[in-house]
């Protein structure tokens, strides 16, 4: 298993290299000139040239990529063009809010989502099933932006129970976590339900029931455990999306996270920050997939890694 893990990590490196090249080229090919953004609309051509030279943007793209790669391996990711802070200084303080929010959203969404799915599957075709699926479908259909604003109007403005934004206290996590997690809760709920329904038709579940096992044991030990692999796969993909896709919740609840930083940096054509962020998101996705693969072995010891 340890060997497998190391092999997987090693195989991620060439993948990241390819991603870094694609990201670099794409960013430099989208229209928009950072030198012009910094110098300002009223700047003359000469002023813009001076800035371009300062940023090294007048060199051929491949040479610039070479500098970037050299920096990447020596730990120097360059400076943000907005205010001269290093890229690491710019990104580091944004990590905590996004990660904290992702984790809190994921925890409640996973628990509630899976519970909803199991209940709906067990009570298939009955009232509880319909209620569960109405909740799930609402979670998918309601745009998170709108949900966030409504939660603020209800719980902050009208009831004055919770703060409108920021991450200063545990209470401030509640509304953004609900906003971020609603969609995932819904996806996991729907997915758990359909997987469970399939598993519950399997012969071994019927055998378990025939043996006279308690229904809860049948559901949890036989049906749920065998559905878990697929549920973990979907959950893993969702977490990956959460980290990079938290921009809506971060905007509505004024949270200084990675999503907002990415959007701001793209608008400012802050190439170095955008590159670093995209590479980080790619690495994070690869890492989560790796964790999911490792979890397969934990869930089902029959799975062997070669």
């Amino acid at each position, binding site marked *: 298993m340890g060997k497998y893990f190391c092999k997987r990590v090693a195989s991620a490196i060439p993948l990241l290299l390819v991603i870094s090249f694609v990201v670099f080229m794409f960013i430099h090919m*989208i229209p928009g000139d950072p030198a012009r953004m910094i110098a300002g609309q009223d*700047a003359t051509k000469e002023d813009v040239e001076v800035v371009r030279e300062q940023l090294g943007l007048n060199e051929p793209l491949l040479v610039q990529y070479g500098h970037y790669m050299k920096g990447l391996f020596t730990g120097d990711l360059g400076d943000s063009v907005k205010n001269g802070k290093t890229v690491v200084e710019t990104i580091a303080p944004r990590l905590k809010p996004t990660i904290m929010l992702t984790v809190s959203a994921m925890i409640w969404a996973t628990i509630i989502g899976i519970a909803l799915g199991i209940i709906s599957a067990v009570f298939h075709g009955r009232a509880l099933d319909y209620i569960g699926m109405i909740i799930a479908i609402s979670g998918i259909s309601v745009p998170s932006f709108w949900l966030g604003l409504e939660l603020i*109007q209800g719980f902050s403005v009208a009831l004055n129970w919770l703060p409108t934004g*920021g991450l200063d206290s545990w209470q401030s996590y509640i509304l953004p976590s609900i906003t971020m997690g609603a969609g995932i809760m819904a996806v996991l709920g729907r997915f758990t339900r359909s997987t469970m329904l399939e598993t519950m038709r399997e012969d071994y579940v019927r055998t378990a029931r025939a043996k006279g096992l308690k229904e809860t044991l049948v559901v949890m030990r036989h049906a749920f455990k065998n559905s878990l692999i697929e549920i973990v796969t979907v959950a893993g993909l969702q977490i990956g999306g959460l980290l990079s896709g938290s921009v809506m919740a971060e905007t*509505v609840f*004024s949270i200084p996270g990675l999503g907002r930083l990415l959007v701001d940096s793209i608008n400012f054509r802050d190439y170095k920050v955008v590159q670093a962020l995209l590479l980080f998101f790619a690495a994070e996705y690869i890492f989560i997939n790796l964790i999911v693969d490792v979890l397969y072995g934990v869930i089902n010891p029959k799975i062997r890694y070669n």
Partner: protein
Amino acid sequence: MKNRKKVLAALMAGVMTLSMNTAVFAAEDGYAVKATNTDAKSKDNDLVIAIEGSVSSMDPANIPDTNAISATRGCYEMLITFNENQELEGQLAESWEVSEDSLTYTFHLREGVKFSDGTDFNAAAVVANYERIIDPENKLRQRRTYVVAQPDGTEKFRVESIETPDDYTVVFKLTEAWSPFINRMTQFCMISPAALEEYGNDIMNHPVGTGPFICTEWEEGDHTSFERNEDYWGEKASVDTVTIKEVPEAGSRTAMLQTGEADLVYPMPADQMAAIQGSDDVNVLAADSNIMRYVTLNMNLPELQDVKVRQAMNYAIDKDAYIQLMYAGNGKPATSVVPSIISGYKEQTPYTYDVEKAKELMKEAGYEDGFKLTLWGDNITQDVKGMTFVKQMLSQINIDVEVLPMESATISDKIYVEKDEAEVNMWYVNWSASDFTMDGSVRSLLYSDMCPPTSANTAYFSDEEFDKLLDEGLATADPEKQAEIYGKAQTIAWEAAPWLFLGNDQLLYAAKSYLSGAYVSPDGSFNFAHAELAQ
């Protein structure tokens, strides 16, 4: 059960406020909405300001956005500044004089002022700050104010020498007369030389100035905090602390005002005004801005070469309707090529909305049946709305406009190209000159040398007399002479109609009625030095 009902009612209230249509609120005496509860009291003495954008820097010599101007002014001061009425007044300089030939500017500095690190403010500090700015190694944005890049790659310095005859006198000698110099000095902040020595360009993380507040924390993307400077040389600040919170979403900013988490929110979108109607202790204020809204007309296009066509297009636009539609009435139709707040502004004869006259002019120009044009602009909702309005108005005189919204950086790429590659027909755009000078307002937009790719004259307007007047205006620092020269220049540009002159919007901000002394300036920065919270 009772509680559940309350939650439901609250959610319903939320749905209703969000779906309400924009009502019309016009500003009177600076108030778009006036609070009825004028006796409201603040629960603490801590001012919280919620803003839309980001405070991207706390280095006053390297300012990327207007919010950074506002924030840095909490702890930094300049030699001179604009007061609330946009008049120049001394801040760290008690007085100043300009020589007859407009080449020498002498500032007499205030004595007994200390930086928040305890060191003295004096003439040497002014010199140290100037030298820091012009040092190319520091890569500071403000360097461009004092150093001009030339087409041949060399650089021209605006300041020939800076002398200090005594500890409290500074003399700037310019290489050639440049009238915007005095206005630009309102952006020249004094940083403690001792702190600069210690931190270098990391000074943005350790601000040390002479201002009424001391910056205690700057977390980019989240907040900037200040506390009162107890050793301030002037009248001490009234509030204990100030926190500038970055709240990008308008609905969330409004909610913060309603819950009392914020005392002032800026900007306040007109469409959010309905939401605060229920609060009796909120004022919505409107400040005149230096924003000029216009559409450039590429005068190289055969259809747009005739002045009659361009004037006809101006007559075909209902400017009042534009202000009503776009800014819920909080604005004014344009009355010159610059907003009235710019120094040297002169009111021009308006192109009053008159479709018949417009049609007649089109007929005289031989374009009775109209023609087709494209209109570029930013893809943000508000601009697309404005562009669509222009399209509808021009269709009345048979001009078929194709609206092409694009991301701003993409437009920038398409605009700054050589003349023979220029594809621009019309550009829906706005301009604000942060130094409030006429030169800063029009040179890069209308001077003949400033056509793309050099700068932003996308009308390709070229008028010798106009250029001459602008150069003359630059060479004199005498306000009366300037007014006469710039008055003529404005008339030339206004009558030639290189643009569709649309309007000047007002800046809307909302504050609790117990807050006084904090205001938004015409350049979009906000000032909280004299803020007071009624207790």
